């Protein structure tokens, strides 16, 4: 069964079209990530699914039921917000139980679910504290706990890690992945961070300007991007693009090579001047200018390369991507 079906969803604010003709399916138990640059409409799309915004046209079905006019609390969803959005006047326990009380669940059920969720998220020591007495990471766990206790058909995450620092972000990312396995629920996760998208998703939906650019598993999108935008958006450092005229091909074609597919060689087809070197220990990122085009090479291991040095890069022919002038993939 499908957890969520969006059919021809459009959304506009006044004359501004924010979402255009979105068609997406989320299977039961699937972890789907909406990813795109800021302003691409991904958060609006999430709010449409949650029922916080109405669609202008199209259908939103959750668990097969048409939900266009159903209020958020009746959609069988739970949402985790970027800013946590905990109720400041309630302690952790009450924050988590509020929605259940609103649903009219019995005290016993509430107690049971809150205990279970707080154990799952290691929130037991903080259960009687107020949000102002918790750290950022703890607050985010409470926000996740508030979603879990509702046992929803569909979880919605709106950039839940954006407010956390780097180390905590990685831990919480793993926690969310674990939760997905434990709960076996469908999840939709919105982020602008391609690393989160690649690591968490069963399926990625890449959005740009309110349109779906491509849908697929992380590796499908990585190995077989439909266009230049998707190719450039996924993968870090991002793919190098330069006109094919650099290697003596037609100037109308743009050539794309991932940084990790470039290697140092003495007789490479690409000659460049190193401008900057990033030594990361495990990898070395070499940023170089090739004529007027900046390219980045990600070399595995440690390399002695200095800024100002002229280097030559080689690449395997089958690891290149070609795009036409509009950015569509060729061949």
């Amino acid at each position, binding site marked *: 069964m499908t957890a969520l079906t969006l059919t021809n969803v459009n959304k506009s604010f006044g004359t501004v079209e924010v979402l255009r003709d979105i068609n997406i399916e989320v299977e039961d138990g699937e972890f789907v990530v909406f990813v795109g640059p800021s302003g691409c409409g991904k958060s609006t799309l999430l709010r449409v699914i949650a029922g916080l915004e109405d669609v202008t046209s199209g259908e939103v079905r959750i668990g097969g039921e048409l939900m266009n006019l159903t209020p958020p609390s009746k959609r069988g969803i739970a949402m985790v917000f*970027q800013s*946590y*959005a*905990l109720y400041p006047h309630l302690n952790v326990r009450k924050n988590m139980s509020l929605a259940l009380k609103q649903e009219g669940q019995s005290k016993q059920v509430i107690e049971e679910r809150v205990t279970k969720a707080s154990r799952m998220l290691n929130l037991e020591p903080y259960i009687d504290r107020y949000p102002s007495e918790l750290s950022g990471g703890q607050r985010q766990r409470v926000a996740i706990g508030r979603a879990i206790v509702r046992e929803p058909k569909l979880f919605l995450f709106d950039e839940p890690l954006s*407010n956390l620092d780097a180390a905590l972000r990685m831990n919480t990312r793993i926690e969310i992945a674990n939760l997905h396995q434990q709960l076996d629920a469908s999840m939709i996760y919105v982020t602008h961070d391609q690393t989160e998208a690649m690591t968490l998703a069963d399926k990625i939906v890449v959005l740009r300007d309110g349109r779906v650019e491509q849908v697929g598993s992380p590796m499908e999108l990585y190995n077989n991007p439909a266009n230049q935008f998707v190719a450039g958006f996924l993968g870090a450092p991002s793919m190098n693009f330069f006109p094919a005229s650099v290697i003596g091909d037609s100037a109308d074609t743009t050539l794309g090579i991932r940084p990790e597919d470039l290697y140092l060689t003495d007789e490479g087809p690409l000659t460049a001047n190193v401008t900057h070197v990033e030594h990361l220990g495990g990898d070395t990122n070499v940023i170089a200018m090739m004529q007027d085009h900046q390219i980045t090479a990600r070399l595995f291991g440690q390399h002695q390369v200095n800024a100002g040095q002229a280097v030559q890069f080689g690449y395997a022919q089958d690891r290149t991507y070609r795009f036409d002038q509009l950015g569509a993939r060729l061949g």
Partner: protein
Amino acid sequence: MNKARQNPLNTAAMHGALILYTLIALFPVFVIIINSFKTRRAIFREPLALPDAESFSLIGYQTVMKQGDFFLYFQNSLIVTVVSLAFVLLFGAMAAFALSEYRFKGNMIMGLYLALGIMIPIRIGTVAILEMMVATGLVNTLWALILVYTAQGLPLAVFILSEFMRQVSDDLKNAGRVDGLSEYTIFFRLVLPLVRPAMATVAVFNMIPIWNDLWFPLILAPAEETKTLTLGSQVFIGQFVTDWNAVLSALSMAILPVLVLYVIFSRQLIRGITSGAVK
């Protein structure tokens, strides 16, 4: 703390300026209070002297207590002020919430219309208001005053509160919606506590003009049983003779409740917005 800001010279200058301002602001109040405890002769001979054994007198307070129903006036003023403030805050906040939270046609126009009252003094409409009150039979009731003061306070309240409500996190309100809270619960339980400092500001701005107003009580509710304190105190001011003892005593007592209300609200003013809800 920033080291540079703890420069003793700066601190001294800052405190000096504040102390000077406090003295200037409190001086009239101080003069009123000390003179209310003096004999009439002492008031005119040495207006700035503190009351001593010879000049001390409670004659003013005695006159006030004897003449007229001072406690009734007091009660009337308090009822009018508190009820008007409650209405201004409640309806102002509700209108502000609607304006800042919901997208509807004419939202902008409605906001401007509601704010227009800031620029137009309500006294211009006195004649029309009086006619309306006569027609509805509300003349000489406290309701007449309460309604007028509510109308007078609303524009500023809507204006200030809608600005503050825009700053309340959307995520918090949306979290409430996803959890199944009604719009009323979201308004009363989530949004209002977060704009409490703004509410206190509005309350303080509105409270003092209402308490001190002479115009509308004089026109709309001059009857003995609906007189407010300010109006009641006027009996001591005659065209030829003014009972200064009584006037000063009445004023001294009139300051008290405003002071109490101010202390209550200013605490809220200072208390920061509840932290921890959002980062």
